[in-house]
């Protein structure tokens, strides 16, 4: 009896030994490199989103590479490029070190700053590795691809860029003008390429629409007192503030705006104030702030994938994502990569680029298709492209979507110390 039991065990082991090498668990993994500012909100949330997609895919057997099921593996490294004073060269060193050490087959979500992203495009060209960016927003990323496709074709961007972002919130500014009669705006942005690009586009738009731009100011990283620009806003009778930053100073600015009771609606890109826990952390003091985010940060009923992603992310991390953009596209990027690998049947960079270019899928932010410039277009219809949504913090601690109208849940309310202009 004992011998019989032993031979059964031996038999099972032999069968396993025979089959395991071809199973996804034993196969060599397909490596995804996450080299970004892991100490910052967008950075670590994108990493979680990539891990989430990888866990889901691996649970279903992995990715089929030319007939062999292989698991995804995530390797990460902190590029620290968002830290004040850190030279771009340091971030590039971290990137190249990752390429040489871990030999990733693709990179997601890329650097935090556009400065580092643009500089890294040459390294990506050298190693011919697909790079699916979901954080940095400078439009120069696309113009470089159009100017020298052969060198820069490995770069793709799934999040909105500065132009699409601006278009998304300019619609809500028009709505604010129509609703409240406001015509005076002040633009304040962080010291970064993408933010300056948005500030420039916004200023032109305001002037074209007959608004008065009461000021445009770039603030240095790490600024901890905004009384001077806020006093300027008050003295110039500003009615709408457009604050463009992805940095923690946003919290300082918003707090000072509230305590100084500046009679102007605070709008813009305010990532540290977008997460579901912000109302509780700041004890409701974010009331009235209007921010813009990608679906997935806030679940949007019209995009079922955003609901699914939000729930899965919350289950994994314990709370929903709080960046203004990045995590949803980072999650989709893994699936896009999987589909491209399976269509190509290979991990060759050039073959993958060709397949990624053919992408057409329903993602967390809407429909994902790449243009010739390797950018996913954004607009107001999730059936046509990505979607940017404007929300306002309203009682009782809810992020109410106010724009675009197709997905809006409510209307903008002015802070208690403000009045309509008409």
């Amino acid at each position, binding site marked *: 009896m004992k011998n019989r039991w032993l031979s059964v065990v031996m038999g099972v082991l032999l069968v396993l030994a025979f089959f395991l090498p071809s199973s996804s668990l034993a196969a060599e993994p397909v490596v995804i490199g996450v080299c970004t500012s892991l100490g910052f909100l967008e950075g670590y949330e994108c990493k979680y989103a990539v891990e989430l997609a990888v866990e889901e895919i691996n649970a279903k057997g992995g990715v089929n590479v030319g007939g062999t099921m292989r698991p995804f593996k995530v390797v990460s490294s902190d590029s620290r490029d968002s830290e004040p004073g850190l030279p771009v060269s340091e971030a590039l060193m971290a990137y190249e070190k990752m390429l040489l050490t871990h030999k990733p087959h693709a990179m997601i979500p890329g650097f935090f700053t556009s400065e580092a992203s643009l500089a890294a495009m040459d390294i990506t060209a050298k190693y011919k590795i697909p790079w699916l960016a979901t954080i940095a927003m400078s439009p120069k990323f696309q113009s470089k691809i159009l100017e020298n496709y052969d060198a820069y074709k490995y770069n793709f961007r799934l999040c909105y860029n500065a132009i699409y972002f601006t278009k998304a919130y300019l619609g809500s500014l028009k709505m604010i003008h129509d609703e409240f009669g406001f015509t005076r705006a002040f633009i304040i942005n962080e010291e970064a390429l993408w933010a300056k690009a948005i500030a420039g586009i916004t200023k032109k738009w305001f002037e074209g629409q007959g608004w008065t731009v009461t000021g445009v100011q770039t603030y*240095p990283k790490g600024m901890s007192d905004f*009384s001077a620009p806020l006093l300027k806003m008050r003295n110039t009778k500003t009615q709408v503030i457009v604050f463009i930053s992805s940095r*923690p*100073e946003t919290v300082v600015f918003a707090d000072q705006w509230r*305590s100084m009771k500046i009679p102007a609606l605070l709008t813009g890109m305010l990532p540290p104030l977008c997460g579901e*826990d912000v109302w509780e952390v700041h004890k409701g003091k974010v009331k009235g702030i209007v921010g813009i985010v990608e679906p997935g940060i806030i679940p949007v009923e019209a995009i079922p994938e955003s609901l699914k992603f939000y729930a899965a992310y919350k289950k994994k991390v314990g709370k929903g994502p709080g960046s203004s953009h990045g995590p949803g596209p980072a999650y989709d990027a893994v699936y896009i990569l999987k589909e491209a690998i399976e269509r190509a049947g290979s991990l060759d960079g050039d073959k993958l680029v060709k397949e990624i270019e053919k992408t057409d899928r329903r993602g967390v932010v809407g429909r994902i298709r790449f243009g010739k410039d390797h950018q996913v277009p954004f607009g107001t219809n999730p059936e046509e492209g990505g979607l940017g949504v404007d929300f306002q913090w309203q009682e009782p601690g809810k992020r109410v979507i106010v724009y675009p109208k197709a997905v809006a849940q409510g209307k903008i309310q002015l802070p208690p110390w403000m009045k309509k202009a008409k």
Partner: protein
Amino acid sequence: MSGMIVYGLVNSAVFVLMAMGFSLTFGISGVANFAHGAFYVTGAYVTWQLVNSLGFAYPLAIGISILITGVFGAIVYWIVLYRIRGMELSEVIATFGLGVGMLETFRSIGLSGHSYKLPKFVDGSMEILGVYVDFQRLIIIGVAAALVFFLWLFSHHTKMGLAFRAIAQNEHTALTFGIESDITAMMSLGMGSALAAVAASVIVPLSLIQVDEGKHILILALAVGIVGGMESVPGIVIASLVFGFAQIIVATYFNPHYTMIVMFAAILLVLVVKPSGLFGKFKELEERI
């Protein structure tokens, strides 16, 4: 204009608080503490942990945090500075390195993000000269004024304060008067570190606990000390007023980026014209000896 006066005064008080502990340690008793900014971040982080992880009442957490940071400063003296005491350059390098190490440790354990925020002591704001100022900023002015008075009283009218000044002027002579220089230096570093935690407790509720703030605080404290005179309490106050108002004037009429340029220009000018600072006497005393 009224807004600039009010917020210029607030900014000046913030400068005073940032520089106070550094002035006490490096200026008054001559013990280098280039980890001052790191102690500032430590104070804020300990308070945050006590409140959020251990559920301490906020005022109690602040008190314990000030105590812990002070004791930590004293320990640092015995571990880092005791053996290199008197070798000024080594003291500077050792404490600067320690500060960088502390800040990078905070970064590596994940001190980043909007949730690292301390609540304001009193919420709300009031109108002064036509502009709204939050109560926390008024508290900062009050605390800064109280600490200036305390520091002056301490350094001029208490035995320990006089001992602090004595070891800075001439350690060997101080020893002949029965002043135990190591104990005094240790107390100085401990008190300076505790003052950094006091500053953090009142300033951080206006913003977030950020690792990079540690470097920023050190630069500002150095700037105030150099311009005002490291060992001079009135000098610290005057330099803080100069920087506080310069900051808001430059940010209002020019660009916030220029505030640091103005600060470094002031440092250069003072170093060339009056190396001891506007109210300092060290250089003159050395030359006289």
